[in-house]
């Protein structure tokens, strides 16, 4: 009962990468233009930022990392908040489940689509902010690296939350409920050193803190703290992607 034509084997890292990219390309086509992405991924962070920064004297080394970090958080996590519940609702998730790929590949592919969206938005925001303010970026290369790793961590964050809930409104509400407090304790508007001790401790438990700090480092002069921030974001990324795989398996393989 051999197949009439040969299929590329669906094993290992190569499969994770190639089939993941296939899913990411499809997600970009299907979900990037959904109005909810515009609302939750672009409008909300823009309004929040303007509400809290207009009329305040914010130094450039705080303004640009905070703004870019927030755009990355909302942008990268919004795609999954839309795509996972829609796919579960329309049962297209079952289409992916019956394909010869693992749940890790689905999570990786969907995460890639969210990350790419977050990276594009963040880099556009950074370019405009730098051009308008005339700020100097100490290491543009490391700035971009931090944006990429941060976007991957935030898309995994969006995936873990969206995997656990039933529908799109719940996914967006849950994510907003987590993202809003996160931006107030992660150095976006106020330096972490200025926060009371309990909030300072909590701030180190959010991935946004590490992205904002890494971007500040890249903006001035990256040192060891930049690499520690990067490691912290990678740990968050791996932990949240693993959590998303476990939750999706638990919720969908009933």
């Amino acid at each position, binding site marked *: 009962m051999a197949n009439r034509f040969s299929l590329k084997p*669906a094993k290992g890292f190569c499969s994770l990468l190639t089939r993941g990219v296939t899913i990411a390309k499809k997600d970009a086509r299907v979900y990037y233009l959904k109005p909810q992405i515009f609302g939750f991924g672009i409008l909300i962070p823009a309004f929040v930022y303007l509400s809290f920064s207009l009329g305040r004297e914010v130094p450039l080394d705080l303004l640009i990392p905070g703004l870019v970090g927030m755009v990355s958080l909302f942008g990268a996590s919004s795609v999954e908040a839309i795509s996972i519940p829609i796919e579960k609702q329309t049962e297209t998730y079952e289409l992916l489940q019956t394909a*010869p790929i693992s749940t890790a590949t689905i999570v990786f592919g969907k995460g890639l689509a969210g990350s790419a969206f977050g990276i594009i938005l963040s880099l556009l925001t950074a370019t405009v902010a730098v051009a308008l303010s005339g700020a100097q970026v100490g290491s543009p290369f490391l700035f971009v690296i931090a944006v990429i790793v941060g976007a991957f961590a935030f898309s995994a964050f969006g995936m873990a939350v969206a995997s656990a809930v039933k529908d799109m409104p719940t996914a967006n509400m849950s994510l907003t409920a987590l993202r809003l407090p996160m931006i107030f304790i992660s150095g976006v508007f106020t330096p972490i050193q200025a926060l009371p001790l309990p909030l300072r401790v909590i701030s180190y438990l959010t991935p946004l803190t590490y992205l904002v700090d890494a971007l500040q480092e890249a903006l001035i002069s990256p040192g060891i703290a930049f690499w520690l921030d990067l490691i912290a974001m990678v740990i968050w990324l791996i932990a949240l992607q693993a959590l998303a795989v476990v939750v999706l398996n638990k919720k969908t393989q009933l």
Partner: protein
Amino acid sequence: MENAIEVANLTKQYGDVTAVDGMSFTVTAGEFFGLLGPNGAGKTTTIRMLTGLTRPTSGSAKITGRDCVKEPVAVKQRIGVVSEVSNLYNEMSAWDNLMFIGELYGVGKQTRTDRVKQLLEAFQLYERRHDRLAGYSKGMKRRVRIAAALIHHPDVLFLDEPTSGLDVQSSRMIRSLVRQLNKDGMTIFLTTHYIDEADQFCERVAIMKQGRIVAEGPPEKLKATLQGEHVVEVAFVGDCSGLEELLRADQTVNEVTKQADKYHIHTTNPGGVIREIVQFATANRLEIMSVNTGRPSLEDVFMKYTGLNAVQVERMEQLRAVKAGRQHG
């Protein structure tokens, strides 16, 4: 002959509820196999376990010799799955949907392009290949869904209610294509509420009730289990109240049901029953429109083993069609 599907003591429990209870059966390679049963019998759970969507609580299931739990990716590479819902991306065209699925299955680009063209032509969708699925009719979407399940040329095709809620033309086309696939050597595993469909196509059927297989075999063999039973079908012009009570009093009559304007009488003595009907019609000055006698159908077998009567079966099919219409509309 080689087995395409081997299921042994397959069980699925949800808390205290046993959805599938120690099910065992085999399907040989190239066979057209049907799984029948009323709602809640465990058909969907069975198909979900065989296609890797649900983990069994215990027991084993193998597809072309590969274990569904231990080697899920290898199993999925060899099966095609058509779920009851046409779950494709409405935002994309038929062409792009099929190309995406082909890429997901690891079909090389040139082969994929040729295969997608071939499938869309076979399903009479090539002319509209670049239209978004959102503008397709229910029947067209189902055809694309079946084409998507065939993109990698699977050894075994699982079809869950493939013609449910479709118009006659689409149903006919799908049946004809599926029959051709089976003739070409593909193993077909069908679940359906349309018992006539199973009777017409399946070489072997299994009837499920409350998570267990209660009857299994070729349709003709199952019909033969209702030994000595005949069906008399009669239609009258005018009011024939009292006939049902009269027939029920007859020791040779096993069941009387009314479907539309006809009475279906299951009896071991068709001649005696016809005489009784004629006497009743004469005494009540009723005109008999038609009388037919026949052997029991697969529906009769289904009714016997599931405990459902013909009216319930008919209602079940109607509800199914309405439900499918809502889902796909």
